[in-house]
């Protein structure tokens, strides 16, 4: 056993795990903060919706599609100058967060839009009939009704961000992915590779379980 995991530096693994946690946590936070309002706007501007705006919808939808269609590995590289401008470095944990948000926010926005569309139109109509304004319809009816769907969306986004965060190791992003590339891949230390992948699998499992429980807790249907 000793010989089998001879290359594994557990302190290093601990630091890398924490880094991944921070990258995913921070980028998830910003993805939700930015993606949620964009998703709500996408929904509202959509066809036959409350604030139908074909032009605004087309523009917003286009931007979201562009960000979502660029492969993340390319987005990581394209974002470098912007990241440097924003936080002074493109390296390490901090440097990975802007590209992660650029990948995560539009992804989450689409999931929000979809879950809002699932809300029964009758509920919107009933709320309108009570004399609610658009703000009240959004915060009083739409978001509470779509909450289970939005939480499921946060779970999916978090898991996507785990894999994106691992990819950011390629541009020196830190975390488990960085470890896997530097040691597991470049130095042929298979045991390090196995450990990092195993940790990522466990991390994703935990996220999915937590997400499913929250969805169940908030589902009243």
């Amino acid at each position: 056993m000793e010989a089998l995991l001879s290359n594994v530096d557990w302190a290093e693994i601990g630091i890398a795990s924490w880094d991944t946690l921070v990258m995913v946590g921070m980028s998830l936070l910003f993805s939700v903060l930015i993606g949620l309002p964009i998703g709500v706007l996408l929904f509202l501007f959509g066809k036959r919706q409350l604030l139908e705006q074909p032009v605004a919808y087309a523009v917003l939808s286009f931007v979201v599609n562009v960000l979502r269609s660029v492969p993340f590995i390319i987005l990581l590289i394209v974002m470098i100058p912007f990241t440097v401008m924003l936080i002074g470095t493109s390296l390490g944990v901090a440097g990975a967060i802007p590209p992660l948000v650029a990948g995560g926010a539009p992804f989450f926005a689409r999931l929000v839009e979809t879950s809002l569309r699932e809300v029964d139109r009758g509920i919107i109509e009933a709320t309108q009939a009570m004399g609610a304004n658009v703000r009240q319809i959004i915060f009083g009816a739409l978001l509470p009704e779509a909450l289970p769907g939005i939480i499921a969306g946060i779970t999916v986004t978090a898991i996507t961000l785990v894999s994106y965060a691992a990819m950011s190791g390629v541009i020196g992003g830190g975390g488990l992915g960085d470890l896997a590339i530097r040691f597991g891949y470049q130095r042929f230390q298979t045991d390090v590779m196995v450990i990092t992948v195993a940790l990522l699998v466990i991390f994703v499992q935990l996220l999915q379980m937590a997400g499913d429980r929250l969805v169940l807790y908030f589902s009243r249907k």
Partner: protein
Amino acid sequence: MIVFDQVQKSYQVGGRAIPALHPTSMTIETGEVFGIVGHSGAGKSTLVRLINLLEPPTGGRILVDDENITDYDAAELRAFRRKVGMIFQHFNLLSSKTVADNIAFPMKLAGIYSRTEIRERVEELLARVSLTDHANKYPSQLSGGQKQRVGIARALACRPTILLCDEATSALDPQTTQSVLRLLADINRELGLTIVLITHEMDVVRRVCDRVAVMDAGEVVEMGAVSDVFLHPQHPTTRDFVFESENIDRDEMQEDLQKASGRILRLTFRGESTYKPLLGSVARESGVDFSILSGRIDHIKDTPYGQLTLSLVGGDLEVAMKALEAAEVHVEVVR
């Protein structure tokens, strides 16, 4: 009082205007239960949504208590809508809120009620619709009838003067329909609020409505007191609805009439005359023999009525007819 003045509505579909409601003028009196009956697609759903402007009209004016609501700006419209409750076929309750929170919701939206006021009003309404024990349940834990009662309590929360019912009993079984209709009738009587009810079942109209408008293809084809429209339908669509609600097969009825001999009369009794032992005495006086071909004795809202189709043979028909008319029975000679 709700006044429709040449109100019309059409939808733009592929650049063409598809009419949903042809120019319509009518008046719904304060405190009455007004039924709108029609098949699906007849425009009744559009008509009821014009009253709270969920559907804005494309022409004409709608006056509610002498105010032209089609002139309202957004804020005035929202204030107006608080005075118009609405209940729906599929209840449209918020699944994420408890029964009590659903009922409190319109009051919270209004933003003019204190927390104590809301709590007290919710308790009062829960008692009104007999759901006090279910206050903290979620809609998914309730039966259809209970959900509709929550819907009614919610619609009444801001003390509206008008209640709109959009096929409110169409998703309910017959017994539940009964209890919901009784609740609506109680509310109408006790609170004096105007109820506008749309349905495709004439039976619903018969039980609770004072007046009815029959719609067909975006037009009101017949309108009047329920007893008149129900007992003496004029328009073919109305006749269809009435026969349908009485489970009468018209072809079969024609066949039965063919077989009968003598004169055929349709007698309509209303109110007290329904209970009088009239037929026997008329038969004795005029010497006419009669047999009953079909008949029904029931209630229109609170008024009893009877409608009998008889065939009469022998005796003095003139005397019999006069005696019946003298007893305030409506006599229609079928053959």
